[in-house]
């Protein structure tokens, strides 16, 4: 599989006066994990639900696995997997029953027991779903999203309510799916999740993409100045530089004793969180503001 799994050009979706999605462009390549970050109300869920075929768009071009989701058929639905944000359905069925049942919908499903095991619900297989904890329920949702062996998996805030251990296990699961060639589009509030999982990240605010890059480079993160800190003559020193490696080697030559160590040496790059907060805190670009007023 090569080429783009998802192509979005100039997507608009308005609810009355509210522009939930306002000229959004993005492209998800086949086989990558693509994370959509953004504050509440940024348009993440609306966008993803348009891509899933759950919502209609007002305008713009959308292609998902080569098909317009507004004209989706059964064959297309068998190639995607969807993990919605909130669900408490099928309360009276057991974990195993729900997963086996949903597997029947697909032409080439995964083995139900394997899926149950993969999401760590083997011990809960015989439990009615209404008795599951929030995190277990969420893992069931993920299981139902992957049981059909999708080429493209949508995950809308998949790890909300997970404890740190379950989140790590979930990340492993996603990495495994990626290794199998599944394209994954996920929305998340958690920056560490995006940083750990995603090949590329889009930051969305006010229904449009503010930045789109690898987690390492997002918002010019790799190119931006690093801070070098060290201790010299008993005082803390700090230098902002675009060439931290050179600074460190100079410091080493000048200050390192026989041990080869520079006392208190630290090189600090802006975290993804710093970049993200800067991005979503920025005022709207001038051009966009003009468009809003016209």
């Amino acid at each position: 599989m090569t080429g783009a799994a998802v192509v979005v050009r100039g997507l608009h979706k308005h609810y009355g006066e509210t522009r939930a999605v306002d000229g959004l462009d993005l492209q998800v390549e086949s086989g990558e994990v693509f994370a959509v970050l953004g504050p509440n109300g940024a348009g993440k869920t609306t966008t993803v639900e348009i891509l899933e075929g759950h919502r209609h768009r007002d305008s713009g071009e959308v292609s998902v696995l080569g098909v317009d989701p507004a004209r989706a058929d059964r064959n297309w639905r068998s190639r995607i997997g969807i993990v919605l944000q909130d669900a408490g359905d099928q309360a009276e069925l057991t974990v195993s029953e729900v997963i086996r049942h949903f597997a029947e919908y697909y032409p080439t499903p995964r083995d139900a027991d394997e899926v149950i095991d993969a999401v760590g619900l083997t011990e809960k297989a015989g439990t009615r779903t209404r008795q599951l904890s929030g995190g277990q329920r969420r893992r069931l949702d993920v299981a139902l999203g992957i049981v059909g062996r999708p080429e493209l998996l949508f995950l809308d805030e998949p790890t909300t309510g997970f404890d740190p251990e379950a989140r790590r296990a979930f990340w492993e699961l996603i990495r495994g799916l990626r290794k199998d060639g599944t394209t994954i589009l996920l929305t998340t509030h958690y920056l560490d999740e995006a940083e750990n999982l995603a090949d590329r990240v889009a930051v969305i605010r006010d229904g449009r993409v503010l930045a789109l890059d690898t987690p390492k480079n997002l918002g010019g993160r790799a190119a931006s100045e690093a801070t070098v800190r060290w201790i010299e003559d008993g005082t803390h020193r700090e230098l902002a530089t675009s060439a931290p490696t050179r600074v460190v080697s100079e410091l080493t030559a000048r200050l390192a004793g026989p041990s080869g160590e520079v006392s208190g040496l630290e090189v600090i790059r802006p975290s993804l969180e710093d970049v993200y907060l800067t991005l979503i805190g920025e005022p709207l670009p001038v051009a966009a503001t003009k468009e809003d007023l016209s």
Partner: protein
Amino acid sequence: MTELSEKTVAAATVALPSTLRLGVARTRVELKQFFRSKDSMIFTFLFPVIMLMIFATVFSRQGDVGPGIPGGPISFGQYFLPGMVATGVMLTSFQSLAIQIPVERDDGALKRLRGTPMPSASYFLGKVGQVLVASVVQLALLFVVARVLFAIPLPTAPGAWLTFLWVFLLGTACGSVLGVAFSSIPSSGRSASAVVVPVVLVLQFISGVYFMYSDLPTWLQRVAEVFPLKWMAQGMRSVFFPDAFKAIEVRDSWEHPMTAVVLAAWLVLGLVVGIRTFRWTRRGDN
């Protein structure tokens, strides 16, 4: 957690499962959920049996019905049975779907299904299967209780059972499509039973299920005649009463043709409205 096996299959070359096969699969899970839910067990499935037991016990001392009519008199339990059959059909078809579907819409079940390759037709086949199986079991239980506990005679003539069959099938179909059509009225899953149950209750009271229909004021009879439950109850009376008892009907007749016409009209209306109004997502969620 373990890794998923890397077996890759070309999806396009394998056929999607058939609509009918998935309809049967849906019926299975619908029935599991129906029989595991306490609400649907007590207020839908067992309700007619419980009511029959209460009424047949309480009113047994008030004497029999229709002493002067050939084939009569009949016990109060027997008088009450057809109304409970009609009620059972209405509860299991109309009430259960009109409550179940808004709940499924609200809790995301419908949206989840919409995101899978399951065809819509399979979903509705599953509902039909649920209603048919649940009501057949429900009525069988009602007949056993009537016969064994209250010695109520059941018809033996094939003609009576033929009437039962068409009234039952038409009534079930009518109740099911109306349940689907009505499911768009409650604004949320939580309010569904509060909206549906009073409608069902009022219909029961004016349709001759709990009272003798002929005892109702004429204007109320005219109102009830608009709705299907009155006709289902009357059709069932024609099955479980001696034929001469049509003398106690308002028009001295079982009015079979009219029963078929009214039920069929509601069936068509329900289909048209249901197809136009059914939605997989919550209101404002599109």
